[in-house]
């Protein structure tokens, strides 16, 4: 894929920026070797409190993530390429995880387009990809608390004030949040890496539950 090198470069910059601004916290994922997921190791950091609204119109905050391995991707439903492709790959990943650890992994899609992505649209979107996935969003100020903590960027590209067919630039990586609600790792999803991500997640869940 033509953007792989750019993705790797961005990943290195992102990891560097995370390391440069974080307070190290002991990570329970640091002893696991991964193939695709870049673990932040000793630079794993606790997420701040945040408050979004999920696709069931219920409050969605840190507590929802506790006790599970969470994959979180940021995008928007009017995205024709990257977002649906990534969600399809997330679906393939969770379907490849052994059933005994699947319950320990949750997938979240956070819309950075709250103007158009109302909860009912997010509900239809999640229902299409996987009813077990959760979508959430919030106004931009509330979103910023979470996106800033995860190094996620997004920018609305309106051609005019009334433009409703606008697109949104956004970070393309998937964030891994561990059971202690810590930002533990990240990866760029790719159809060729689905198997390896599933193996990484299985190892993370299994080895941490064995401790």
């Amino acid at each position, binding site marked *: *894929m*033509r*953007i792989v090198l*750019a*993705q790797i470069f*961005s990943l290195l*910059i*992102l990891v560097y920026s995370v390391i440069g601004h974080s307070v190290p916290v002991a990570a329970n994922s640091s002893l696991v070797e991964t193939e695709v997921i870049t673990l932040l190791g000793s630079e794993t950091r606790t997420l701040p409190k945040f408050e979004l609204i999920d696709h069931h119109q219920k409050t969605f905050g840190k507590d929802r993530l506790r006790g599970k391995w969470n994959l979180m991707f940021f995008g928007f*439903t*009017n*995205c*024709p*390429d*990257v977002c*649906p*492709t990534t969600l*399809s790959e997330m679906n393939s990943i969770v379907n490849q995880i052994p059933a005994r650890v699947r319950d320990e992994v949750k997938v979240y899609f956070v819309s950075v387009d709250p103007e158009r992505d109302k909860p009912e*649209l997010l509900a*239809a*979107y999640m*229902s*299409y990809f996987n009813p077990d996935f959760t979508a959430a969003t919030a106004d931009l100020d509330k979103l910023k608390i979470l996106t800033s903590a995860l190094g996620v*960027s*997004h*920018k609305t*590209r309106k051609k005019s004030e009334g433009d409703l*067919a606008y*697109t949104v*630039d*956004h*970070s*393309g990586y998937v964030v891994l949040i561990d059971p202690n609600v810590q930002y533990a790792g990240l990866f760029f999803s*790719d*159809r060729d890496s689905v198997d390896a991500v599933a193996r990484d997640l299985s190892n993370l869940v299994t080895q941490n539950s064995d401790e």
Partner: protein
Amino acid sequence: MVTRIFLTMMILFPLASQADLVIANAWIKNLPPTVPVRAAYMNMSNTGQEAVCIVSFSSEKFSNIALHETVMNDGMMHMQQVTDLTIAPNQQIILEPGGMHLMMRANEPTRPGESVQMTIKLSDGSHQSLMMTVKK
């Protein structure tokens, strides 16, 4: 009789531009009816000796069809329109998820398994028709 000869000639010796552009694996990623956009992907090969230039794509089922490329811009995924689609002799251009794709606005909902006709207009004025399969 003349018509039959003409049709036979067309089958045996089609217009060079139409014969040179070979489309394979053309498909559309399905999305729920609440989403108005779709992306289409395909492999486009120029098997001829001269460059083939695609001017536009059209379909009754979609409007505002444009070739886009997903590129990394300031650490973000950005969709950039590609305005010149010229395929050199023996060159293959691949439209695939996460890379180049046709960005399309759906005039009506799509469903997996459906076949959608699309017309490609070339710079010499000729047209080429292809069928695309909608996939989940």
